[in-house]
């Protein structure tokens, strides 16, 4: 029974993941074609770049928050590391190889940016992930601040200090395609990680750390793997940002940006990659559109709404008092109401829970109570024949055992 349900669940998850590849693959081809035909405006292209950056960030944070159950408040810090170091490598390479659309330089800087962020993730995760509780949140928060302070105090020649660092350009018409490809790569790595032994270990730790430890899972190791992976992709998103923005400023990667990514993950439903992608696209779109509408002090209205959405969604999804309400009113319950009950045996074999709903099963309790009532009546009839009665009773129990087996 459990076997049947688990395979069904596996199949479902696989489809969810494949849907991600399909949708993003189709979009890549579509926008690639449009771009070749020269149909995309500059603002659209810029928006697409931003969206791909947000999706990479949201999916990688989803791994930590949704699947590992730890809170990282320094995702923008890892992005900052990637943006500065990857951007620096790109600038050096473009000096060396001559400027232009150098794909090799792009790939090299992506790799360097991602790896540097991953190393930072390792150094931060090592002390914090050994501990239970909310220590990762604190340490990543501190890390984000440290990174900002360090890059702010660099000299003008090295990383530009407070003025920010100039980064090389790349053809706008194709950069977003690289962004889309990177989104696909991120999905491929993270989704396959989640389906692997390592990913299951990580989710097992989230669900019950003590039980996971008792089954021999090295908790710190698996948490660290997940966290470093997440930091790596944040670094890659940073490099992409440095290419997209032409300039990297440390003030951009503050606490607020980390929170914005967190809002995407929470809005998408923690632990859902599809949800994170949709929320990231939606929020990035809204940010860009609202930036022209809301100016000055009104711009904060957006933050206010994000904050309210964050608090509202978390309380709605997690409050113990709302549990029964959530179970009654949700999409799944509505869908199951719409569906007709399955009766076909071939289908039932797949749907193991359906066995409980089918009236073919013999109800043991009913049978037993009927027999007991008969037995109660029997001794009153034949008082004298005690031995025979007990024999009959033992026969009865033997029969019952046979029935059960």
């Amino acid at each position, binding site marked *: 029974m459990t076997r049947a349900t688990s395979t069904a669940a596996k199949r479902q998850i696989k489809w969810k993941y494949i849907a991600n590849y399909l949708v993003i693959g189709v979009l890549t081809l579509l926008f690639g074609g449009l771009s070749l035909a020269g149909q995309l405006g500059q603002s659209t292209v810029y928006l697409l770049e931003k969206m791909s950056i947000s999706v990479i960030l949201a999916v990688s944070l989803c791994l930590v928050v949704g699947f590992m159950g730890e809170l990282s408040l320094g995702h923008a810090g890892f992005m900052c590391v990637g943006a500065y170091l990857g951007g620096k490598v790109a600038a050096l390479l473009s000096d060396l190889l001559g400027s232009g659309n150098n794909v090799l330089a792009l790939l090299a800087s992506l790799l360097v940016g991602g790896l540097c962020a991953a190393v930072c993730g390792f150094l931060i995760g090592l002390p914090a992930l050994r501990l239970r509780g909310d220590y990762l949140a604190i*340490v990543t*928060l501190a890390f984000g601040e*440290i990174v900002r302070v360090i890059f702010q105090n660099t000299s003008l020649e090295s990383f530009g200090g407070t003025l920010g660092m100039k980064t090389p350009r790349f053809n706008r018409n194709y950069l977003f395609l690289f962004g889309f490809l990177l989104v696909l790569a991120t999905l491929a790595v993270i989704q396959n990680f989640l389906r692997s032994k390592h990913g299951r270990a990580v989710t097992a730790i989230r669900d019950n750390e003590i039980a996971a430890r008792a089954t021999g899972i090295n908790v710190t190791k698996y948490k660290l793997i997940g966290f470093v992976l997440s930091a790596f992709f944040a670094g890659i998103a940073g490099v992409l940002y440095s290419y997209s923005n032409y300039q990297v400023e440390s003030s951009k990667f503050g606490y607020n940006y980390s929170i914005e990514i*967190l809002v995407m993950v929470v809005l998408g439903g923690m632990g859902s990659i599809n949800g994170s992608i949709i929320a990231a696209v939606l929020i990035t779109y809204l940010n860009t559109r609202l930036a022209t509408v809301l100016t000055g002090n009104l711009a904060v209205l957006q933050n206010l709404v994000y*904050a309210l959405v*964050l*608090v509202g969604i978390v309380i709605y999804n997690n*409050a113990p008092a709302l549990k029964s309400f959530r179970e009654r009113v949700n999409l799944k319950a509505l869908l199951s109401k719409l569906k007709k009950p399955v009766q076909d045996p071939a289908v039932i074999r797949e749907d193991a829970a359906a066995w409980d709903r089918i009236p073919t099963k013999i109800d043991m309790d009913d049978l037993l109570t009927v027999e007991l009532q008969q037995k109660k009546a029997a001794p009153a009839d034949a008082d004298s024949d005690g031995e025979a009665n007990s024999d009959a009773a033992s026969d009865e129990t033997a029969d019952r055992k046979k029935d059960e087996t």
Partner: protein
Amino acid sequence: MEFLHTLINGLSLGGIYALVALGYTMVYGIAKMLNFAHGDIIMVSGYVILVFLSMTGNPLLAIFASIVFCILLGVVIEKVAYKPLRGASPLAVLITAIGVSYLLQSLAQMIFGADPKMIVIYDFGSVSIGAFSIEVKTLLTLFASLVVMISLTLFIKFSRTGRAMLAVSEDRGAAQLMGVSVNRIITITFAIGSALAALAGTFYLLKAPNMNPTFGSLPGIKAFTAAVIGGIGSVPGAMFGGLLLGIIECLCNAVPVLSPYTDAIEFLILILILLVKPTGILGKKRREKV
């Protein structure tokens, strides 16, 4: 002489951190959650002082109003945002707390604008003993925070409510069986924490009179660091950690090479402490039970 000056400044700043850290540590010990919105209570207290000072011109009244307002705010936040999540996963509570912090900052920015506002509560001037000169507000902060810390310790040790708080932090279920109203104790804890934060906000405003919506986040994070360094959940730990962090900050600021990196150094110390002694300097190790 220079060193003594730095030391007193550090102790005074440390007093402010300790007051805020007490709020963090008490809430952590009793409600078992990190109240990320605690730092923003400091900011709210600053704005309340701004409003009352411009309305009445009386600094004492403004400080009193800020304390009352912050207590109410702390209790309301607890009732509205945290209480529904009691029994939910720690991650959910943590994210809600961050959301509340973000909400307070955005609200403040909407009402008062993002540009900094200068607030001078009262100009105390400075005293000098021989060649040694020090500002009165520094001494006042140090003295007041010490008095508050001592009275809080006495309150927790000897009053009925204080003992109930200790009992709840030790074992919530057992305390409830002994007739302690856990909900009431949590509310009181938030009220005390918010009052301390409001007081700390007043002192911080004396020290750094530029108000903006993110005014509370840096001292909030620093105080939090102090609470973790001292051992989160431990009241004397928060006091010790706060004073220690204040001294470290002032010493770093006094050295020209280190001064731009002061914040980074403090957070680095936090990471090192977590690496060596995760429970903090005065924290107790808790055994994990299934």
